[in-house]
């Protein structure tokens, strides 16, 4: 439209302005279509629909009801545009002519922006959160207001940096709202200088703080220094409140920059900045008392719900202005996190980032996998997980440093010399490298998405195993005596085949236990899940044990050619602690399977058939992906039935697997004295075993006789091995 629309006065009560007239242009003329619409309404009877060739009922669902505020994202709520909002004084510069109020309002804006940023990180669109700030949408206007300008610039640069990290990680899928920045002014000229701009402002306020502290008794300021605001009693408090906020932003920006440096080179520096951020956040929290008390007027409502430390509503925000940019979701009012919760969010984020920065970049894949699994237990959010993923996989290498073949070489207990072998150029080995890379990326995603991907991933690992096995047989068939190099290649294949199997079962194990974390199994399904878990654990333990034997061989060959001492021989014949750990799992899985099977077979209420299908269908659904990949082989619903159909309280009483688990856990604890995580888990396993052992005894003695006995399952001790609770109802 060439001309601006002519408006009536904007109503005081906040109703959208009514258009008095929209001028026509040279080639258009306006005509009133109301009579036509009226006639059209009368032209269809109830139930009739107009059919179009390219417009079916499904498409009709996407129709919007214009002027319905819940569907019409173009609806004008308060202002037609950002410019109109500004013209109507929605984002004044300066915010107030009273410098004291101006400073307080600036702090309110800073706080609300922090709350918006946290809301964005938590899963809302950037357009409705951080960029609901009119000052940010027209950043250049803020130039006369040094404080606001510098703060907005660094916010913009920070958001851009964070979007970049999450986009590069590329596994956000369900979290895809995060990276939508279309139409938002994220790229600012001169934003690369945002730190120096911020530093200048910080320096000025630092000087003001020093000055007001030094002259507080003399009540006279140096001539060249203007006070921040007009009330000398509040000067110190405001300076401090501003400084910690500016410093937090500075250090946070540094954290992001340091962590971006390749091959983890900036991690140590990042940790220092993280520590500074946490200190400043503490100061920010402390400033709340001052900000709330410095004005006579108190704010309404619960202070804990407010998005600012002072409790006042911030000036200059309108979430609906960008409603067209927050598509594809329909326009919904979103709840910005409270200021307190926002600070909590950033504290957690910083702690999660600190864990990542403290990681030693261990070249051993097994340790890395355990680190990632452990990290995920604290339920880190998207921003933290993206940073971890980018640290682990850069430029197609582990930590941007180690080629994946070398990583696999080490994991498969091959001698160091083979890591440069030409065999890595073989197509199958290249693909295996990709699989390991993808595995690491998947393990950094949210648990729900991760489990789905791991399930589908099993097929890829099965296929690569088959491919490698085929290649091995084609190359080496029945060859017994062969050249040195051929021997080397054979060894590589053998080790890697074994390692691939171990990894595949580990993925299957992870897939199954994530189901508990995600609450995907109902109690009636626990029996089959623990049974399948048992089957997978048996194979995993077998492969792990073999892998360790093979690894020990390699180590021996590397070591001095000494004759084996009796001590060495004894150590060799002992079961490695890692294998014993898995055997503890096996005992618990078996114990739970049998107990659940006995309960099902003996107590009617435990076995409630559904009208539309049977246990067989549930088995097929839960384990479809595992079955398709034949993991493990020869495992099926009939074999599950066979294992469990004869379980009774009498048979249960004959063997207590939980006692075995207890015993193993106790014995193996000393081997993990240097591993606090595994030690902690062993204690939990012991507790589960102990409780379940007692429960089993009670059930066996009283189960069939006492109908008031209620059996339930809780995950109070261990995340995937249930504790059995027996009560009288």
């Amino acid at each position, binding site marked *: 439209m060439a001309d601006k629309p002519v408006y009536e006065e904007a109503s005081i009560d906040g109703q959208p302005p009514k258009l008095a007239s929209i001028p026509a242009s040279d080639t258009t003329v306006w005509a009133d279509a109301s009579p036509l619409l009226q006639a059209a309404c009368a032209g269809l009877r*109830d*139930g009739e*629909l107009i059919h179009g060739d390219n417009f079916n*009922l*499904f*498409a*009709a*669902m*996407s*129709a*919007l*009801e214009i002027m319905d505020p*819940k*569907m019409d994202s173009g609806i004008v709520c308060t202002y037609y545009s950002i410019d109109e909002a500004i013209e109507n004084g929605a984002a004044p510069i300066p915010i107030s002519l009273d410098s004291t109020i101006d400073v307080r309002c600036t702090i309110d804006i800073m706080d609300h922006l922090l709350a918006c940023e946290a809301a964005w990180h*938590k*899963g809302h669109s950037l357009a409705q959160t951080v960029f609901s700030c009119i000052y940010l949408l027209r950043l250049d206007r803020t130039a006369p207001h040094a404080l606001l300008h510098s703060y907005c610039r660094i916010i913009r640069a920070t958001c851009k940096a964070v979007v970049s990290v999450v986009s590069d990680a590329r596994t956000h899928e*369900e*979290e895809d709202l995060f990276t939508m920045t279309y139409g938002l002014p994220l790229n600012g000229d001169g934003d690369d200088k945002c730190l120096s701009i911020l530093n200048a402002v910080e320096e000025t306020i630092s000087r003001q703080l020093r000055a007001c502290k030094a002259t507080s008794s003399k009540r006279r300021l140096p001539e060249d220094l203007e006070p921040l605001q007009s009330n000398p009693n509040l000067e110190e408090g405001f300076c401090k409140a501003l400084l910690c906020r500016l410093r937090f932003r500075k250090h946070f920006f540094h954290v992001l920059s340091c962590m971006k440096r390749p091959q983890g080179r900036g991690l140590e520096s990042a940790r220092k900045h993280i520590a500074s951020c946490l200190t400043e956040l503490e100061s920010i929290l402390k400033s709340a008392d001052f900000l709330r008390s410095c004005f006579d007027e108190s704010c309404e409502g619960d202070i804990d719900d407010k998005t600012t430390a002072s409790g006042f509503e911030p000036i200059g925000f309108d979430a609906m202005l960008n409603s067209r940019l927050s*598509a*594809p*979701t*329909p326009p*919904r009012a979103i709840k910005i996190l409270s200021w307190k919760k926002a600070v909590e969010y950033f504290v957690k984020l910083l702690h999660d980032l600190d864990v990542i920065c403290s990681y030693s970049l261990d070249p051993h894949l097994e340790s890395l996998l355990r680190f990632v699994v452990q990290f995920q237990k604290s339920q880190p959010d998207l921003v933290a997980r993206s940073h971890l993923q980018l640290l682990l996989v850069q430029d197609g290498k582990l930590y941007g440093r180690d080629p994946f073949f070398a990583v696999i070489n080490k994991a498969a207990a091959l001698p160091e010399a083979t890591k440069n072998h030409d065999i890595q150029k073989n197509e199958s080995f290249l693909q295996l490298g990709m699989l390991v890379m993808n595995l690491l990326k998947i393990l950094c995603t*949210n*648990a*729900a*998405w991760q*489990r*789905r991907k791991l399930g589908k991933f099993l097929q890829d690992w099965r296929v690569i195993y088959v491919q490698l096995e085929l290649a091995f047989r084609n190359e080496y068939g029945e060859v017994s005596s062969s050249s040195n190099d051929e021997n080397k290649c054979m060894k590589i294949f053998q080790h890697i085949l074994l390692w691939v199997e171990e990894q595949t079962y580990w993925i299957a194990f992870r897939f199954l236990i994530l189901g508990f974390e*995600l*609450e*995907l*199994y*109902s109690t*009636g*399904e626990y029996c089959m899940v623990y049974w399948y878990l048992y089957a997978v654990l048996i194979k995993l333990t077998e492969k792990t044990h073999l892998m360790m034997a093979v690894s020990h061989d390699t180590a021996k060959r590397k070591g001095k050619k000494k004759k084996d001492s009796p001590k060495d021989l004894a150590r060799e014949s002992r079961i490695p602690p890692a294998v014993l750990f898995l055997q503890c799992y096996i005992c618990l899985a078996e114990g739970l399977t049998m107990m659940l099977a006995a309960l099902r077979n003996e107590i009617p209420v435990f076995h*409630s058939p*559904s*009208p*539309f*299908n*049977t246990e*067989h*269908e*549930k088995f*097929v*659904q*839960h384990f479809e992906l595992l079955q398709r990949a034949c993991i493990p082989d020869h495992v099926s619903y009939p074999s599950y039935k066979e294992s469990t159909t004869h379980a009774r309280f009498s048979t249960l009483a004959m063997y207590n697997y939980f006692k075995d688990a207890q015993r193993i856990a106790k014995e193996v604890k000393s081997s993990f004295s240097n591993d606090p995580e595994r030690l902690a888990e062993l204690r939990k396993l012991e507790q589960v075993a102990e409780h379940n052992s007692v429960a089993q005894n009670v059930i066996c003695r009283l189960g069939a006789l006492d109908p008031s006995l209620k059996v339930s399952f809780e995950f109070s001790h261990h995340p995937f091995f249930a504790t059995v609770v027996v009560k009288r109802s």
Partner: protein
Amino acid sequence: MLLQQQKETRGRERTMEAKPEEKAEFEEAEIEYVSYGGEHHLPLIMNLVDQELSEPYSIFTYRYFVYLWPQLSFLAFHKGKCIGTVVCKMGEHRNTFRGYIAMLVVIKPYRGRGIATELVTRSIRMMMESGCEEVTLEAEVTNKGALALYGRLGFIRAKRLFHYYLNGVDAFRLKLLFPPPRQVL
């Protein structure tokens, strides 16, 4: 556009949180179950669903379901008043013929008496008879009532969908797999 609407049709059923106050007095036999019979039923369904859900659907959404699959929607009446409804669809999805439960509502005073179960059961039976291999729906992870209802009918929690709903709540994708049809000898 399509994506927007699909995100909007994510069921926001809050069906099963039964509260002890204001319970209706009735015998289960007094409830009449009726298959969707035409346009005259549409406002009843719309009112029920609009009443119970925080976000009303447009009329086109209802029409899509009840026009294309009228045999899959059912209404429950008590003394002439519509007190519950279920709205579904079915179709080919990645080589499986699958039913989908879009909306299920029973008004508060009538909850906890098996009416929702009966409505859903009728729909599922119709889907089974029509050759569906499975039935699916989404439910909030916090909707204990719905999860229990569908669990009793044989649904499993096939997937968890992170932050599926616009308020950040996760969802379960529930799936019921029918047994393979009995072979006629």
